[in-house]
């Protein structure tokens, strides 16, 4: 991404959250500051026969009231429901009426990791238990990865260059970077971020095949990245949708710098399995800082990817230490409260990081007691840490080697 001066960088003026930690920005933020874990027994289906029975589910989400127009409840998957609801909140939070803006200067760019998994499982059941004619008309528009962007575009009449990046768990940062490219190219406003929801039997079974999920049964200790007891991660659903505006557009309508600015991004990919070449994370984080025209000393907090898989935790801790020095910057991973949300995970981290910048407080990594021996990071655990925050670095890694970093500024 081209680097630009900070005052020209696009701003995030609205946040909408549908996450296990809560529906709505303040519900989420107060749960995060309180370290209130949302990881609990899976309730969306009977998971008692599966080796993983814990997940982060969005509590009390009623698509019937949250999704507008209501016909979309049956026409789209839960993943899209969660995004539609978050987008309504984000636009209201930004206090912007899309109907008053030029249609081609608004766009939607979301990330999706796995599309309408539950919808797809239901329709495949109809096909194989019955006949092709039992497959409903909405399978064709609910299952595919572009469903959320398409529906958001229609709902809010955003006719600019819309997009979808499906880069697994790093895709959320890439979507925000693409939104920034669009504002650099003349767009005023982009709805971005993402959600995922694959907590159905087939979705969970697919996730199990990676061997990276935690089979621990204690919700408090099931997902403890960087901890000596780390044994994998817990899956979750939901995410965040953000309103990203060009600095000029936000200023023109009096929205100012909003929650903060998107200052820089970089993406890279790990070398093939078995290669002796170094993994991408350190380089990508450095590139993102360069794109933001910042030095490591300018970064006041790192939102870690926090895989919860010991080898990956170690690699991340080493990358952070190599870039910043040993214990030189606070590192946190509030995602231990929600589990990993796939396409929605990084957007939620960005939302949380913006709230941290706003309030000058680093939320803790709940669950993790202390970094495992040899991990030289200043991991914020236990209680929130108040300190002046200017810039945050958000890291994300996805299955296969996707690696992204995003720099945010107040």
């Amino acid at each position, binding site marked *: 991404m081209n680097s630009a001066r900070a005052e020209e960088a696009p701003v995030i003026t609205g946040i909408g959250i549908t996450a296990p930690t809560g529906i709505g920005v303040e519900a989420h933020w107060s749960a995060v500051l309180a370290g209130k874990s949302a990881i609990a027994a899976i309730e969306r289906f*009977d998971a008692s026969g599966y080796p993983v029975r814990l997940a982060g589910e969005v509590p009390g989400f009623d698509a019937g009231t949250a999704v507008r127009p209501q016909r979309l409840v049956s026409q789209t998957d839960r993943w899209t429901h969660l995004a539609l609801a978050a987008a309504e909140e984000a636009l209201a939070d930004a206090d912007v009426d899309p109907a008053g803006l030029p249609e081609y200067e608004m766009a939607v760019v979301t990330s999706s990791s*796995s599309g309408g*998994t539950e919808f797809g499982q239901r329709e495949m059941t109809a096909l194989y238990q019955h006949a092709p004619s039992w497959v409903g008309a909405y399978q064709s528009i609910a299952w595919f990865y572009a469903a959320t962007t398409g529906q958001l575009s*229609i709902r809010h009449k955003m006719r600019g260059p819309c997009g979808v990046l*499906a880069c697994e768990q790093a895709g959320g940062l890439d979507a925000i970077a693409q939104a920034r490219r669009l504002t650099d190219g003349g767009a005023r406003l982009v709805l971005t971020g993402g959600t995922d929801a694959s907590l159905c039997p087939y979705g969970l079974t697919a996730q199990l095949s990676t061997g990276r999920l935690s089979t621990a049964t204690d919700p408090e200790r099931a997902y403890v990245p960087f901890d000596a007891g780390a044994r994998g991660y817990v899956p979750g659903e939901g995410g965040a949708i953000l309103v990203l505006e060009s600095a000029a557009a936000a200023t023109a309508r009096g929205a100012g710098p909003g929650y903060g600015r998107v200052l820089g991004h970089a993406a890279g990919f790990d070398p093939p399995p078995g290669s002796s070449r170094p993994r991408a994370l350190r380089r990508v984080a450095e590139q993102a800082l360069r794109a933001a025209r910042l030095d490591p000393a300018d970064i006041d907090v790192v939102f870690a990817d926090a895989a919860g898989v010991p080898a990956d935790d170690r690699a991340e801790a080493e990358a952070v230490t190599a870039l910043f020095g040993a214990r030189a910057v606070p590192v946190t991973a509030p995602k231990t409260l929600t589990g990993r949300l796939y396409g929605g995970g990084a957007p939620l981290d960005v939302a949380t990081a913006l709230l941290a910048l706003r309030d000058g407080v680093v939320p803790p990594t709940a669950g993790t007691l202390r970094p495992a021996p040899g991990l030289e990071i200043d991991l914020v655990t236990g209680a929130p840490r108040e300190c002046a925050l200017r810039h945050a670095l958000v890291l994300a890694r996805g299955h296969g080697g996707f690696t992204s970093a995003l720099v945010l500024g107040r």
Partner: protein
Amino acid sequence: MSRRVVITGIGAVVPGAVGREAFWRLLSEGRTATRRITLFDPAPFRSQVAAEVDFDTAAAGLEPRQVRRMDRAACFAVVSAREAVRDSGLDLAALPPERLAVSIGSAVGCTMGLEEEYVVLSDRGRKWLVDHEYGVPHLYGYMVPSTLAAEVAWEVGAEGPVALVSTGCTSGLDSIGHAVQLIEEGTADVAVAGATDAPLSPITSACFDAIKATTPNNADPEHASRPFDRDRDGFVLAEGSAVLVLEERTAAERRGARIYGEIVGFAGRSNAYHMTGLRPDGREMAEAITVALDRARLDPTDVGYVNAHGSGTKQNDRHETAAFKRSLGAHAYDIPVSSIKSMVGHSLGAIGSIEVAACALALRHQVVPPTANLHHPDPQCDLDYVPVTARDHSMDVVLSVGSGFGGFQTAMLLARHGSAAAAAGRSGS
């Protein structure tokens, strides 16, 4: 000075043709690759026709361990990428891996693998609580389409940005557009970019049956894809892949690369109208074309050929005919417009890249591929659709467009290397 992007390598795995040269022969001879479905028993389905790839994994050079792991869509992409790199003559090992990007489009990802495994684990749909013990180790790789981009990245050794772009049926144009942006902005110097889809499976057929989007013309599969013809009755589902090597222009020139063409304009718009419906006025597609021309600093009269979306549905053919008239004016009547979907079907997200590959080859050969099966033009489609037979045609600029579920409308402009149009310059994205 702004960075420009050229195409230096092409790889293709398409119905009726594995490989770039076979693909061009098929197009220039106007042959159709549509037939009765053989990949599964199509008898229970409304539409029983598809354009299938006769694909032999061993002949294509894939190793058994790759074939075990990879969905058919991934196989297509990897084989196409390999051919494209070979065709480019580029020594990828000599490049810094972090300057090499990958951008792959796909509308439906690894549908086949996902469905096949579901049938096993659910005991043909009997068990909602599927058996997790029998899941294959790479099952998750089927659930996430990002696998397709990861496989290509491993194949070519890319460590720069790797993206899976999934904007429905415009994925293959948008993935190339994304790669162009990465090179123009300086994030990458070389990109391996294209798209792949292998959707020929019962669930895909059932879902298009449900909305009557695919042709019911089961009696005459070879002539079932009939864009712009008054007798068309839906699109023919297909599979395939095309992958390009894109390079920064001056670097490609310096190494004396053979340049198929330059990508001089790219723009996307959404209709925000309906997930599957199109308004007959073609307004947003026209806007995308106009913006792409503007970025390329070209006039409508510079366009020498239009590679249409031409899916063979009544609403599409009228929608885009209106879009061409709206954006190109009277010039729309003066230039050839054709749809290769008449020959290779509609491979959802893959087709956009396959069509860009066709455009690059058309520029190189100065031949316009025909619209096969077009014998009785729809009176409401009154442009020059190059019926049945390919045509020698001198052209410097070609336009390729796509339109997809979700309302996506994309336009891309290619210019012949060294032509005045290529020199006109692009303002960057």
